[in-house]
């Protein structure tokens, strides 16, 4: 990437994805309220530029009400555009402009401040064909990214663009606002640091500034992430996807007081190897967050107890509790109208109790409102909910079916989050008890233990005899990897495969001499064996590889390599368990004929 950026500085012809944005109705707004229009556009452009940075693009120039950006990967360009549209449209509460975006992939002539060439003209013309809030991409771009991203695309046919001689076939892309699993890796909201900070005076900004400027900022983030998710993550590419602001937010919502926050942080510190180092880190975090807690307490008091006499504060709390209970009931009612309520409840139950319950009676007996409440307390922000839903979905077999279920749940939970600003969860009774939300039992981080593919497939193969199991594909033997090696290198470059695996296992490859010597000390087979140890499931590897490919140079070259690796390695992983291969279910299936009749389609 550095080399590519360097070449940008010099005037030269490069192949790049050009992204052009334009605000709809900017001039009209300008004539109506100049100051407000300028403030809004500046904020929008700042946000777009921030996202452009996140996706490794470069802002080449501003056109006043839009930006001209350049990316070295078409997939990154499209992912960035989708995020821009999602971010700016999803924010319906604050006024922002609708933006049109055009993307084209072509040869352009670039120097450090400007870009010229037919490619730019086409991108600009395509932008004018885009509907407000949508994206118009040329066929070239679409062809490059269609295999990677599941897009909501409409073919517009060959377009006659002004001053362009040949017709340009183009597609209109709509950002999928709902939780979309297929392209989750690329279009999951990026809450990148710095993107959202407009005002730099609030205690939150000061805390953010202090923490992100701290020499130990990576450890700080790891510890906060670990405390929020109850899951230790060392991979910076994963951490990068969670903004510090977002993490601090969920940390504070789970821990209404400084003391509770301290307890939560130290509970994680106690499980770590470098306890002394992380105790210091915890203190740094607490020091920065204390003013925030003071500010929140000050803001809360008049709101939470508006007209309360010291005597009847309990009454008020009950009132608030009752009100919030209604909210959960409301969501529950909403869900119970759905024909798929059993599946919905199964997902809710699993997220709350981290067990895939297949006993229909138990599911039916569980109170939907209580499940909704529990899940809401586990996921104080929509992003948390999304994270957990996606995590679960990765472990289910019937993805298509459950993607719908998960989307229904995500939608139904919307009202809870949208009123969050008025009804701060701190005042809800469940959260008074910090243990409730933070104890490992209720945290979802270690879900795979219960329904881990290795456990269940081996178990189910033993437990169920007879023809139905015969259809299940045999997991290939990992003792002999010659066939796997050949399958990988038959269609792709062995060195690229090694670099990708190295990046997945360690850190994105930068080409340093140490990395080269490591690459020479291990064979492809050695790396594959490490991958088997590192990634317990195929889905795990798939998501890690898809993320890492965007952190390396030559994304377009590496993407086919990722596909080759994944296709070749898949037979060496056990199939993820479907709902009926969970151990509890299988043992029951043997005993009860009623449950066996629910065998998933893949069996027969």
């Amino acid at each position, binding site marked *: 990437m550095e080399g590519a950026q360097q070449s940008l500085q010099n005037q030269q012809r490069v192949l790049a994805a050009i992204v052009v944005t334009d605000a709809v109705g900017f001039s009209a707004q300008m004539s109506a309220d100049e100051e407000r229009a300028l403030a809004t556009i500046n904020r929008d452009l700042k946000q777009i530029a921030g996202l452009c940075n996140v996706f490794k693009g470069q802002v080449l120039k501003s056109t006043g009400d839009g930006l001209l950006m350049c990316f070295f990967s078409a997939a990154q360009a499209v992912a960035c555009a989708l995020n821009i549209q999602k971010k700016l449209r999803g924010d319906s509460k604050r006024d922002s402009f609708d933006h049109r975006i055009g993307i084209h992939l072509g040869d352009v002539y670039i120097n450090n401040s400007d870009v010229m060439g037919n490619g730019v003209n086409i991108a600009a013309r395509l932008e004018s064909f885009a509907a407000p809030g949508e994206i118009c991409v040329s066929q070239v771009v679409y062809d490059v990214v269609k295999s990677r991203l599941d897009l909501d695309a409409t073919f517009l046919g060959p377009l006659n663009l002004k001053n362009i001689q040949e017709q340009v076939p183009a597609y209109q892309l709509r950002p999928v606002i709902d939780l979309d699993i297929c392209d989750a890796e690329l279009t999951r909201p990026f809450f990148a640091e710095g993107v959202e900070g407009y005002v730099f005076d609030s205690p939150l900004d000061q805390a953010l500034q202090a923490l992100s400027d701290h020499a130990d900022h990576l450890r700080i983030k790891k510890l906060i992430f670990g405390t929020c998710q109850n899951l230790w993550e060392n991979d910076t590419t994963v951490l990068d996807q969670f903004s510090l602001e977002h993490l601090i937010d969920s940390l504070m919502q789970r821990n209404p007081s400084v003391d509770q926050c301290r307890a939560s942080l130290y509970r994680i510190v106690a499980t770590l190897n470098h306890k002394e180092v992380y105790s210091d880190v915890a203190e740094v975090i607490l020091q920065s967050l204390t003013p925030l807690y003071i500010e929140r307490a000050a803001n809360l008091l008049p709101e939470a107890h508006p007209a309360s006499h010291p005597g009847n504060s309990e009454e008020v709390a009950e009132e608030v509790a009752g009100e919030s209970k209604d909210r959960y009931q409301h969501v529950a009612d909403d869900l119970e109208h759905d024909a798929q309520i059993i599946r919905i409840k199964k997902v809710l139950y699993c997220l709350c109790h981290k067990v895939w319950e297949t006993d229909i009676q138990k599911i039916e007996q569980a109170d939907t409102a209580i499940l909704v409440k529990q899940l809401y307390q586990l996921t104080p922000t929509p992003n948390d909910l999304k994270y957990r839903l996606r995590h679960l979905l990765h472990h289910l077999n019937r993805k298509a079916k459950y993607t719908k279920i998960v989307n229904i749940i995500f939608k139904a939970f919307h009202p809870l989050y949208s009123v969050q600003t008025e009804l701060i969860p701190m005042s809800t009774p469940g959260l008074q008890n910090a243990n409730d939300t933070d104890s490992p039992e209720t945290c979802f981080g270690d879900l795979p233990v219960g329904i881990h593919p290795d456990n269940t497939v081996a178990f189910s193969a033993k437990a169920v005899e007879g023809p139905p199991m015969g259809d299940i594909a045999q997991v290939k033997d990992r003792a002999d990897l010659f066939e796997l090696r050949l399958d990988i290198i038959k269609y792709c470059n062995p060195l*690229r495969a090694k670099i990708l695996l190295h990046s997945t296992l360690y850190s994105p490859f930068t080409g340093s001499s140490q990395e080269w010597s490591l690459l020479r000390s291990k064979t492809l087979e050695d790396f594959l064996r490490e991958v088997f140890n590192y990634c317990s499931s195929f889905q795990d590897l798939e998501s890690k590889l898809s993320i890492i490919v965007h952190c390396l140079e030559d994304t377009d070259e590496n993407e086919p390599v990722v596909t080759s690796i994944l296709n070749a390695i898949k037979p060496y992983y056990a199939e993820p368990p479907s709902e009926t291969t969970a151990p509890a279910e299988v043992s029951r299936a043997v005993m009860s004929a009623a449950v066996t009749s629910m065998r998933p389609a893949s069996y027969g």
Partner: protein
Amino acid sequence: MDNVEELMASYNNGHKDFSGLCLAGLQLPKADLIGANFSKADLERTDLMFSYLSRVNLQQANLSHANLSGVNLNQANLIYSNLSDANLHGASLQGADLRGADLTLADLFDVNLADADLRNADLSGANLTGACLRGANLRQELRSEQTILRGAHLRQVDMRGANLKGADLACVDLSGANLSEAFLKDADLRNANLSGANLKGASLADAQLEGANLRYANLTRTRAQRSNLAGCDFTGANLKGVNFTDTRLCGAQLFQIVMVDARLLRADLSRANLSGADLTQADLTNAYLGRTNLGEANLTGAILFKAELSSANLADAKFAGTTMPDGKVID
């Protein structure tokens, strides 16, 4: 031609003949030069990392010390090219023609040489660790010409079905290599390290394996007629159904080995250690077992007809249904 732009411009204009030119030391990473002709060109120390060079003609070109890591040289013509000390780490050379090429000390780590023609090539001292040579041809054509792999590193190499007839593999490290169905007739594997190697169904007829390390190797149904296996260490190896007819196995370490259904006709097993070995149904007709240690060996159903057993150690050996040297069957 000393200018990268000039070269690329002329290639992009359809000019593909760069034969005999001096292009030494040029920086051409990721260059697309598919199908170009560089025969007899001087490309010493040229950087061609990740370049696309499929079907390129590099016959007799000088590529010594060149950086060819990650290049695509599929179906390229590299006949008699000089690749000594070149870096080909992770390169793809599927179906490339490397006849007579000089690859001494070349770095061929994890390289894909599937179906490549390496006849008469010199790979001595080359690092082929993890390389794939599946179906590659390393066959010796003439007495005077043979593929030399002496001292090469071949750990984890994939040589399934490769033709290595008469190849010089003395002292190589082939540990963990897959040589199943490989053709190793007349190959020189003296003192080679074949520990953990897979030689299932391979042909080692007339091969020289003196002093080779075959610990934990898989020799199921391997054919090794007339080969010299004197002093080989077979500890933990699997020798089920192996064909060791007319072999020299004197002094070999075969302690507790499983040799069920093995063919050991006329084999020389003098001073070999077969104690505790399982020789069920093995055919040892006419074998020479002078001072062989067969203590506690299982000879159930084995044929020892006309075998020389007079000085062998047969203490506690198990005989049941065994055909003895005189033709009598012990019940």
